[in-house]
């Protein structure tokens, strides 16, 4: 079987499975999977930058929150329709990631991590500062009546699942196409050897900036959809913890793989959900997972598959 056929089969298979699960899962897991698909889209966005371009951002929550607040404030303050609000969310992510990228990409390595962390912290405080619009830490509700997209009530579980599925499928397919396209191959080249990529004539800065923007906009889209599907916009989504989560998910699933973010998000979600029944300190699980991954499996679950079973795994 050719690589292309295997790729189509694998990713198409996953999407078909997720589509079919809609009709089989019990309500609780049905709801969880919808949530996981939105969060996995966030992780997919993070992975474009971290996994494929080799840039580790510790401030992705600011993009997620930019989308969430871009959408939420459009609805809350300007009474926008959901479709327009989603566009506003994506637009906010585009602008924020563009500006942050222009500045942060002047640094590299550890400095890039710290700069993104600092920008994200400033973003978090800004949300609190403009409390008269954002309701600060408390956040606000997107009412059910404001969540009807083209006549589809997104608060209905079935519709929510399909909306989450649509977001996830588009993010997955877009990134799959992207990393197999020349643009994505250049990103990988930059990850592997930035100077060599430059000396092959590629505009490294422009490619990295594009990667930040694609990554940030996908994260923002996930944030906007999250707010719309679950009816809440709040500052906690902009906090440091929500910048660490996608890193954790992507590392667990396999950085630089298309399926890794989904696998990691799903795995971590259930790990926390199950361990919270055993210990109150369930974030301990996250800590142990991070240390263990760094020590024993830096390539993650899908990364191990790529190493041992199929080298062509995109």
């Amino acid at each position, binding site marked *: 079987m050719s690589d292309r056929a295997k790729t189509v089969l694998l990713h198409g298979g996953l999407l078909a499975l997720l589509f079919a699960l809609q009709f089989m899962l019990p309500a609780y897991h049905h709801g969880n999977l919808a949530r996981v698909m939105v969060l996995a889209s966030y992780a997919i966005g993070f992975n474009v930058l971290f996994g494929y371009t080799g840039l580790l951002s510790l401030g992705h929550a600011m993009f997620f929150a930019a989308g969430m607040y871009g959408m939420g404030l459009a609805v809350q303050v300007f009474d926008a329709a959901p479709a327009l609000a989603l566009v506003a969310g994506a637009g906010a992510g585009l602008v924020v990631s563009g500006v942050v990228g222009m500045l942060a990409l002047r640094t590299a390595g550890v400095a890039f991590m710290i700069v993104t962390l600092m920008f994200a912290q400033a973003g978090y405080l800004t949300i609190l500062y403009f409390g008269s619009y954002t309701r600060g830490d408390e956040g606000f509700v997107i009412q059910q009546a404001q969540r009807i997209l083209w006549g589809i009530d997104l608060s209905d579980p079935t519709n929510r699942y399909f909306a989450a599925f649509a977001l996830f499928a588009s993010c997955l397919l877009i990134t799959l196409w992207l990393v197999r396209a020349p643009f994505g191959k250049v990103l990988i080249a930059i990850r592997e050897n930035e100077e060599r990529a430059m000396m092959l004539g590629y505009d490294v800065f422009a490619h990295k900036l594009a990667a930040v923007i694609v990554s940030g906009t996908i994260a923002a889209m996930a944030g906007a959809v999250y707010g719309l599907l679950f009816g809440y916009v709040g500052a906690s989504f902009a906090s440091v913890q929500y910048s660490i989560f996608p890193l954790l998910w992507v590392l667990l699933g396999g950085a630089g793989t298309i399926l890794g973010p989904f696998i990691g998000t799903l795995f971590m979600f259930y790990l926390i959900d199950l361990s919270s029944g055993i*210990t*109150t300190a369930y974030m*301990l699980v996250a800590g142990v997972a991070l240390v263990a991954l*760094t020590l024993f499996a830096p390539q993650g679950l899908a990364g191990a598959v790529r190493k041992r079973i199929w080298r062509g795994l995109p």
Partner: protein
Amino acid sequence: MEIGPYLMLASLEGAVTAAVLALTAVGLSLVFGVMRVVNVAHGEFFMLGAVLAWWITSLIGGHPALGFAVALLVVPVLVGLLAAAADMTVLKRVAYDPERTIVATIGILYILQQVTLMTYGADARPVEPPFNTRLALPWVEFVGGKLQLYWPWGLSTTSYKLAVIGAAAGVLLGVWWGMTRTKVGLLMRATQMDRDMALAFGIPVERVYALVFGLGAGLAAMAAVLIVPIQQAHYLMGGDPLLLSFIVVIIGGLGSLPGTVVAAILIGLSDGIISVFFSPTLAKILATLLVALVLVFRPQGLFGVRRA
């Protein structure tokens, strides 16, 4: 309050912040300088210092000064040993790769925080200061063309706060002396300048790394022991010192100890004084952005000496 006494009070408060911050940040800076890694778990070593100080003072009882003195001696050593163990079991095994170290120390951060939650609990607990007298301070004013002293409302500090400043200055002098005048300090500086050369000269680099990592954490813990009679020990208290230390270390130049101390004093003092003029939350936003922009536009100057 008039602007004069106000600035004096802000400076006094800022000096306490600066003293504790300098100790914490010097620990972080030392680790970056010698080992070239960023320790994200640094704030949790600070938190552990405060929690262990509470534990020891509670166990000992008696006069508060007794338990506090024991804590001041024992806690930094305990935390330092723990950090050295983390260095040898985790950081050494990722070969001090800068990015993997950050991820691993984020993991260590959660582990320390959550284990503290499971054992110590979620409450904020106070430690009694060994001594604490309120000292009202005078200010001068012109009355009928003559200078005279008066006692403005609220212009005061406490004996303990002054002691914190003194103790921190003493410890920092000790660190400076250790780095410049002792053989261990020489080994550290040699390792900092050129790891490979140090290895070639038979310096036990791995042991130096464990020592430095332990020392860095120990300094954070000592800062926490000093501050815990003023604040309280709480399992989530590590976040703020971490962020502030980052800011200080970046402004001062990563790896440069004098720069770090100067930056700590600058940040500590300005924190109080800026909030005179801006909304405090806005001041924090501006400070954070400033740090990001300093890193963006002046990275070489602020990262100390770059390696070729």
